[in-house]
């Protein structure tokens, strides 16, 4: 909400400088987002009176105006069509800082000759003064503007732009903000006196009000003013509306807006003669009912929307917008003025249904009190009588089915200290609460206060709310700074599943960054297309959960896999990267418990809904040359065995040993993918990405991908390992070279060698095909380390074992020793 400092000064004396005031309000919860100073640059602009107007000797459209400045007279050239004798006008001396109306830039007024006549300054338009965009003519000041006074003193203002929190609709009003200032500065609050004459004829003989839905409309007040003459508002009123960012329209509408800004109560003026049956009915809209609102839009209504109707049809959408037919026009001579209270949720629903929001609905939406409408109605009636109307009907219609008693809350000084840590005595508390308009009564020999909450503070419901009031007015900066003194909760075991999980995640992150992987974090929401691209046939195994109101199609589904994010990131970065890229992400995937079957999707009942399983996964990709371009580095691209090596080393660091099965994951290329097996369970996959998948992500190189299910992995690492004694006896190393059929996998060889108890370690140190090896065969060079936990091995023992080993390798796999 924008509010003028000058307007605030009508209700409270303000001695603080504007910046200080803004700071105090902000600290107390009413944030001043911006401050705009009007007239801060008007040092050389004064108020003058036009005392003579003569034609310009050389130009028909220009005039020579003589302006009395109190201290003397000056003559200036003026082209404004609206200048006339006797006007009070702003006069800028040479040196004044103004706005160039054509460029909008700040300029300093210089002496000038206009068509041969010297001008000693100029009479200014609103635009030249920076007040508004208006440049059709000069700014004409009210007749009471003091001649000779600096314009800044008369018209200058400071506009605060306040960010009012949703709990404080009372601060969407000048009086509400003034009350805050009064409480913060200790100054008294002055409310406008309300008094006006009424005619003999009672309002009841003009109109009646029937509330059909008392729950949705707790109160409806109305007054009636006759002899209305629609005209522009006086300049002070226009200025006030302008200063608060509202456009002046005519005297009637401007008065309703003025009072809304002043009290925070929206008002609506109906053209009385357009109301059929002289009746106001507050009811729900009918099914299929429509209304054309004042913006000219025909709107479809429904029974969730509350309307104000006459005997025949809706004349306004309650609290949101008036109807075109009953709008005040130039011909209006009698108005029925509405000041009512509507249910907050109803207004909110109505706004969202009609996609409408305005100054009135914003206030109702925050929840106004049903005690509020009467005073603003009287204030508006008074102003209308002063500015637009002739007579007010006797009395006020006040239908009030929803009256509620003021809330009573007990507060003690002890409670203030218990919550805030700030010691405030009873008198200090009373002072703050009274200044804010709370009625307080001390009881229990002064240790307890019974606080009656004023109607405009619907946000105050319990003692904690009062504690905040006390502390924020005294100032949050006064709250002491202490450290938590309460005992520490019992610490969770490091072996608890949640501790283990975060521990595992941190370990993995450290290991992978150590291996040269860059961590990335990608969005939880992805497009369906991206998930589909993970399969060459564009099939989805798990239907992902959909967001009902996505921002974009790119972020419409909750990811069921991290793969898409990694491949897309790789694709995005590939064009900038010279060297190979290693990326990983550790994050959640979202797996619905009840994958909706497409046909019955619509029928799925509420009971079936569950939160999805949120599963922690690790995914990593490698692509491009193994090392950066360098005079010494390995220039070969990453391949399957790099990825497999990452998996083996990663698991090794976690104290686990992996084995690998031929995998059939569809993201991976057939024959180049493997399942990662730990203790007979599949914990993940590793392999080359299927070329079709790579293509779909616009990737050209071979991409190796690793994916590990962290929940499964967690079950493996949580088992506490048993210590193995360091071997005490020397080991014996033997190298063998086997020639074997191409079809026989290395693992089968390894398994046989491994099965001999004396074998401690096996290392494949060469794989050879070519010269000296027959076609269809390959040669494995293997180093075997033998060791016994109980004694020093003899050559005979090792020879014997190796002989048996070679015999089995020959028997079972057809392997022969390479000569």
């Amino acid at each position, binding site marked *: 909400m924008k509010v003028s400092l000058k307007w605030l000064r009508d209700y409270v004396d303000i001695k603080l400088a504007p910046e200080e005031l803004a700071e105090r309000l902000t*600290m*107390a*919860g009413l*944030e001043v*987002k911006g401050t705009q100073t009007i007239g801060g640059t008007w040092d050389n602009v004064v108020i003058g009176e036009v005392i003579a107007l003569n034609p310009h000797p050389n130009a028909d459209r220009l005039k020579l105006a003589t302006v009395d400045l109190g201290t003397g007279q000056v003559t200036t050239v003026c082209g404004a069509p609206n200048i006339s004798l006797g006007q009070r006008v702003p006069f800028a001396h040479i040196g004044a800082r103004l706005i160039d109306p054509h460029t909008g830039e700040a300029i300093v007024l210089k002496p000038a000759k206009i068509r041969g006549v010297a001008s000693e300054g100029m009479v200014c338009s609103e635009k030249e003064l920076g007040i508004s965009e208006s440049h059709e003519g000069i700014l004409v000041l009210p007749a009471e503007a003091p001649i000779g006074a600096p314009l800044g003193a008369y018209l200058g203002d400071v506009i605060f732009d306040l960010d009012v*929190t*949703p*709990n*404080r609709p009372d601060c969407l009003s000048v009086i509400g903000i003034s009350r805050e200032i009064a409480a913060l500065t200790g100054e008294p609050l002055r409310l406008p006196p309300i008094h006006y004459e009424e005619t003999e004829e009672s309002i009841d003989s003009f109109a009646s009000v029937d509330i059909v839905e008392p729950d949705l409309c707790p109160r409806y007040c109305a007054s009636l003013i006759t002899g209305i003459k629609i005209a522009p508002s006086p300049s002070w009123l226009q200025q006030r509306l302008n200063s608060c960012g509202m456009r002046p329209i005519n005297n009637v509408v401007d008065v309703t807006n003025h009072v809304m800004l002043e009290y925070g109560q929206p008002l609506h003026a109906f053209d009385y003669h357009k109301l059929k049956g002289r009746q106001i009915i507050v009811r729900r809209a009918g099914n299929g009912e429509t209304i054309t609102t004042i913006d000219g839009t025909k709107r479809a209504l429904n029974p969730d929307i509350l309307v104000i109707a006459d005997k025949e049809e809706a004349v306004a959408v309650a609290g949101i917008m008036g109807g075109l037919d009953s709008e005040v026009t130039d011909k209006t001579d009698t108005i029925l003025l509405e000041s009512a209270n509507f249910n*907050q949720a109803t207004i909110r*629903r109505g706004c969202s249904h009609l996609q409408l929001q305005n100054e009135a609905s914003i206030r109702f*939406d925050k929840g106004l009190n049903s005690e509020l409408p009467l005073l603003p109605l009287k204030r508006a009636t008074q102003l209308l009588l002063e500015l637009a109307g002739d007579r007010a009907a006797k009395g006020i219609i006040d239908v009030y089915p929803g009256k509620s008693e003021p809330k009573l809350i007990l507060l003690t000084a002890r409670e203030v200290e*218990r*919550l*805030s*840590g700030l010691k405030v005595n009873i008198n200090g508390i009373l002072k703050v609460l009274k200044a804010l308009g709370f009625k307080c009564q001390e009881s229990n020999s002064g240790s307890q206060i019974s606080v009656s909450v004023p109607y405009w503070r619907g946000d105050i419901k319990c*003692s*904690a*709310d009062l504690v*905040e009031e006390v*502390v*924020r007015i005294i100032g949050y900066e006064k*709250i*002491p*700074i*202490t*450290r*938590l003194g*309460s005992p*520490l909760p019992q610490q969770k075991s490091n072996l608890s599943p949640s501790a283990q999980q*975060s521990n595992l995640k941190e370990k993995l992150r450290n290991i992978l*960054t150590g291996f*040269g*992987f*860059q*961590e*990335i*974090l990608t*969005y*939880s*929401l992805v497009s369906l297309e991206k998930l589909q691209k993970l399969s060459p046939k564009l099939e989805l195994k798990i239907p992902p959960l*959909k*967001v*009902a*109101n996505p*921002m974009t199609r790119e*972020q419409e589904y909750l990811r069921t896999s991290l793969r898409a994010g990694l491949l897309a*990131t790789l694709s*995005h*970065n590939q064009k*900038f*990267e010279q060297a190979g890229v290693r990326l990983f992400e550790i994050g959640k995937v*979202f797996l619905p418990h009840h994958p909706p079957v497409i046909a019955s999707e619509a029928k799925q009942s*509420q009971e079936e*809904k569950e*939160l999805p399983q*949120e599963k922690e996964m690790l995914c990593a990709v490698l692509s491009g040359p193994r*090392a950066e371009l*360098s*005079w010494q580095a390995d220039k070969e691209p990453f391949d399957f065995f790099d990825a497999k090596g990452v998996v083996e080393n990663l698991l090794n660091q976690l104290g686990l040993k992996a084995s690998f099965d031929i995998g059939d994951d569809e993201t991976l290329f057939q024959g180049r993918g493997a399942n990662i097996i730990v203790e007979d369970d599949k914990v993940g996959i590793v392999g080359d990405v299927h070329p079709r998948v790579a293509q779909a992500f616009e990737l050209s190189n071979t991409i190796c991908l690793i994916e590990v299910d962290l929940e499964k992995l967690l079950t493996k690492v949580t088992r506490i390992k048993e210590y193995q004694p360091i071997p005490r006896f020397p080991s014996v190393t033997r190298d063998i070279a086997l020639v074997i059929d191409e079809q026989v996998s290395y693992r089968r060889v390894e398994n046989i060698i491994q099965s001999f108890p004396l074998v401690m370690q096996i290392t494949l140190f060469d794989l050879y095909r070519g010269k000296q090896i027959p076609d269809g065969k390959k040669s494995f060079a293997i180093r075997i380390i033998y060791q016994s936990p109980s004694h020093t091995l003899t050559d005979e023992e090792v020879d014997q074992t190796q002989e048996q080993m070679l015999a089995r390798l020959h028997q079972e796999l057809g392997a022969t020793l390479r000569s």
Partner: protein
Amino acid sequence: MLEQLKDLHTQALDELNKVNNPRELELWRVRHLGKKSSLTKILRSLAALPLEERRKGGAQANEIKRALESSLEEKEKLLQEALLTSPLESQRLDITLPGRPLPAGRLHPTTQILKEICDVFKNMGFQVIEGPDVEWDYYNFEALNIPQHHPARDMFATLWIDAGMGEKARLLRTHTSPMQIRLMERERPPIRAIVPGRAYRYEATDATHESMFYQVEGLAVDKGITLADLKGTLFDFCRCIFGEEREVRFRCDYFPFVEPGVEVAIGCSACDGAGCRLCGYSGWIEILGAGMVHPDVLARVDIDPKLYSGFAFGLGVERIPMLRYGIDDIRLFYSNDLRFLRQF
């Protein structure tokens, strides 16, 4: 033969004196002590001689062999010494050639700052827990004093899984605060925990807004916890993260699930409080919302608000590296351009 041996010895020593480097020394060794050296030949030929001569000649030859071996050893030492004090030209390196590259792996800046934040609170006795990203309306709103149609719902533009289903609707949590409720449902005071995690908003993205971001939620509940404790805790946190000098502002603000409510801002580092585009010309940058847990929230999880009190806070994570490194666009975080990520 003895003469011959003597000559051999003298000649070998002469040659040894002329040896200047290890390569020449090796050649000398092969020539004089190798399998085909004259000395070896003499030793082999001894077998054919009569016993007396064989004994004499053998003793002499072996003595010379030992002498040459020890001379060799000496020379070796000398040469090594010389090499260490003035190495050969060929052994010099062009030390300006670049080193062999090692792959540089880094953590995402968000992960780095999350760890930093969590460590600060862990030192204050807070335990770290996590919670679900997909939540019930109940935990995200209802239980936090934001029922259906509450005006404060405007503060949280929501991405829904189920639209318009009341408290049984699923949504992407708009903040980490639902974990306050989940925590208090399963634990009794004293409670002291933080919850790092992702949060989501239905929001058009721009330089300062993302539809997904990280928060760290904090909660402490026990007897006698005050707003002053909250102030102390958060001031400590700000000092740890932003340094001793940075100004901190603790002002009244509104969040439906706390009362009294607090906003913490730190002095803008870009303009030092003078006002700039980064801080919206206020000189301050909001980093977290906080307050005393609302008595209705405590009562909802069966913690007696008359006996117990607590504070809660919710901290925007990306803000911190943005301030620290002068990052002017939050969208850089999750678009994962390596040219950005490698800078941290």
